[in-house]
């Protein structure tokens, strides 16, 4: 027996969408095996992980609250990844957005005014963009690798936040603890459904995804990105500005990450603290790939990943499983997804050297 790959010659429409589904299925199967190995009833564990978190009243709103930052960042990243701009420092841009927006919230305190929250939104976008502009500048001007510069800036951003909340921005009535004062009502994200934490950021995340999809499918920019993604050399011949796309990708990604940061601190958290993100900027990378670098796919992927966190907590509460299981599942999911993607451009060839192609086309579907 011999397993080989054969180019399809064109993208398979079926597997473009089939691959993530197959990857999810394979992950669920693998998860069941791991649960069994950990001494759990696989069916019960899967139920706890995937369904149970949604059964309570707060389940769905919480799912969207958790997914919103992932979607916002993921949409930005997926557009950049299409242009082969590898911004993996969204975590830092998220932090800067929170810092910029949070600055205004602290300045106005309990003051009110319709303009406060919109101004915070704009500031946060600006903050994220500034932090993303550094790798963009270093890449276009000095050819410095954006993967490494954006990542290093993430560490710097976290230390900057830590400095601010332990130093100049510390809550004067907070007994010296590392945190700012709580934001006033005028500087807090509006809640969409009373009694839940579902905030405006969720709507904006969905709107951003929709907008991203429109840009990608309808605009010249989207066309450029698609050409660049599939045929970089052709793009260069066509005279697309590489520097322009690098700037655009990073600014877009940074701005959306900054916005996500603001909605976390002005939404569920309500103040600046040293730990405002459980790694959204990194998880969003998985989200972008799981969503096929497609803004609408990113929405689905964000929800799936959010569910994995909620499920991980439920598994701890109900089954006593360790938290590390969540990280392993996310890694495995991404592995399967990347592996299954081969089916988009290639078909599996099973058997001896040159099997009849028609027969195999049947089998692969």
């Amino acid at each position, binding site marked *: 027996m011999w397993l080989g*790959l054969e*180019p399809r010659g064109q993208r398979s429409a079926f597997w473009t969408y089939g691959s993530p589904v197959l990857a999810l299925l394979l992950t669920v199967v693998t998860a069941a095996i791991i649960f069994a190995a950990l001494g759990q009833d696989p069916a019960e564990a899967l139920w706890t992980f995937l369904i149970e978190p949604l059964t309570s009243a707060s389940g769905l709103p919480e799912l969207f609250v958790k997914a919103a930052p992932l979607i916002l960042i993921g949409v930005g990243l997926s557009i950049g990844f299409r242009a082969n701009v*590898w911004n*993996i420092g969204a975590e830092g841009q998220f932090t800067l957005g929170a810092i910029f927006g949070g600055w205004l919230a602290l300045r106005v305190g309990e003051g009110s005014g319709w303009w406060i929250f919109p101004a915070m939104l704009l500031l946060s976008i600006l903050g994220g963009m500034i932090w993303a502009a550094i790798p963009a500048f*270093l890449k276009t*001007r*000095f*050819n*410095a*690798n954006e*993967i*490494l*510069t954006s*990542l*290093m*800036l993430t*560490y*710097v951003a976290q*230390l*900057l936040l*830590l*400095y601010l909340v*332990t*130093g100049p921005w510390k809550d004067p009535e907070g007994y010296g603890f590392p945190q700012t004062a709580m934001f006033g009502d005028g500087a807090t994200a509006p809640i969409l459904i009373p009694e839940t934490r579902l905030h405006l950021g969720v709507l904006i995340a969905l709107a951003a995804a929709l907008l991203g999809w429109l840009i990608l499918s309808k605009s010249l920019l989207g066309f450029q990105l698609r050409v660049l993604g599939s045929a970089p050399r052709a793009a260069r011949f066509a005279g697309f500005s590489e520097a322009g796309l690098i700037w655009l990708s990073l600014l877009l990604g940074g701005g959306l990450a900054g916005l996500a940061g603001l909605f976390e601190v002005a939404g569920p958290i309500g103040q600046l603290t040293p730990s405002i993100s459980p790694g959204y900027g*990194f998880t969003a*990378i*998985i989200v972008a*790939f799981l969503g096929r670098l497609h803004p609408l796919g990113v929405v689905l992927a964000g929800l799936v990943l959010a569910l994995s966190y909620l499920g991980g907590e439920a598994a701890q509460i109900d089954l006593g499983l*360790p*938290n*590390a*299981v*969540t*990280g*392993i*599942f*996310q*890694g*495995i999911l*991404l*592995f399967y997804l*990347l*592996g299954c*993607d*081969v089916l988009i*451009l*290639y078909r599996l060839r099973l058997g001896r050297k040159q099997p009849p192609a028609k027969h195999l086309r049947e089998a692969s579907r």
Partner: protein
Amino acid sequence: MSPEMINILLSIMTASTPLLLAATGELVAEKSGVLNLGLEGMMLVGAVIGFATAVHTGSASLGVLAAVLAGIAMSLVFAFLSLTLMANQVATGLALTIFGTGLSALMGAGYVGTALQPLPKLTIPALSDLPVLGPLLFHQDALIYGSFILLIAVAWFLYRSHAGLVLRAVGDSHDAAHAIGYPVIAIRYAATAFGGGMAGLAGAYMSLAYSPSWSENMTAGRGWIALALVVFATWRPGWLLLGAYLFGGIMYMSLYIQGLGVNLPSQFISSLPYLATIVVLVMISRDRLRIRLNAPACLGRPFFAAG
């Protein structure tokens, strides 16, 4: 040289060694055209497997061996996805780090708080009694010697051996190498596995020598710095050594100057190694010609052998 200076240099050597080990492996992988961003994940799995093995067998050597094998196993997952299935290397590497972080945390849960004696120092008789140079050069643990030997071996291999020439050819133009008849994928598998083994070794250095213990995420970003080092060195072994010691030195000195009572918030000093990485990257990368001359032209690009 005063005894204090010698102590400082010894501390910097320890801080630099994991960087050097991991970067040496990544250098070989990248020279063959494979960009594996999963260093951090491979190091963590190496660290936990090495530590657990050493605890159970009581043998540090077996621990080191197990860590190398674990690193290789992790890198083969990456190789299968990115080389055989032609998945995007950047994404696969990131996935490997995420996966490795979770896996090592799960496997290591039972070992947190367990302590081990550090790797024994290998003293080279007579030479270690030399003033100044003695303690620096001839009274170290085996992995520090190993990091130098491996680097020299890699430098020799890449630039003086036929196999090294082939490996570089694969990294520079996989199509040409394939046309001549070299097994591109197999060579890349081997280079990736070597990179994984070295990352495992670097992990073992963290958990067996640097601070002999296991804790979640104990490499704390060193895998990423090692990746930056390879670019910093513009893929040349000699510069890799310089870079590793420069970065190890900065990491150590950022704590040292805090102890001296420099009037700066600690967070600013803590961010020095990261800022230094950026500055150095910029200084190196702006010389596009040098990058182009030394960087493997096919770095990160998938290869499919048609026909």
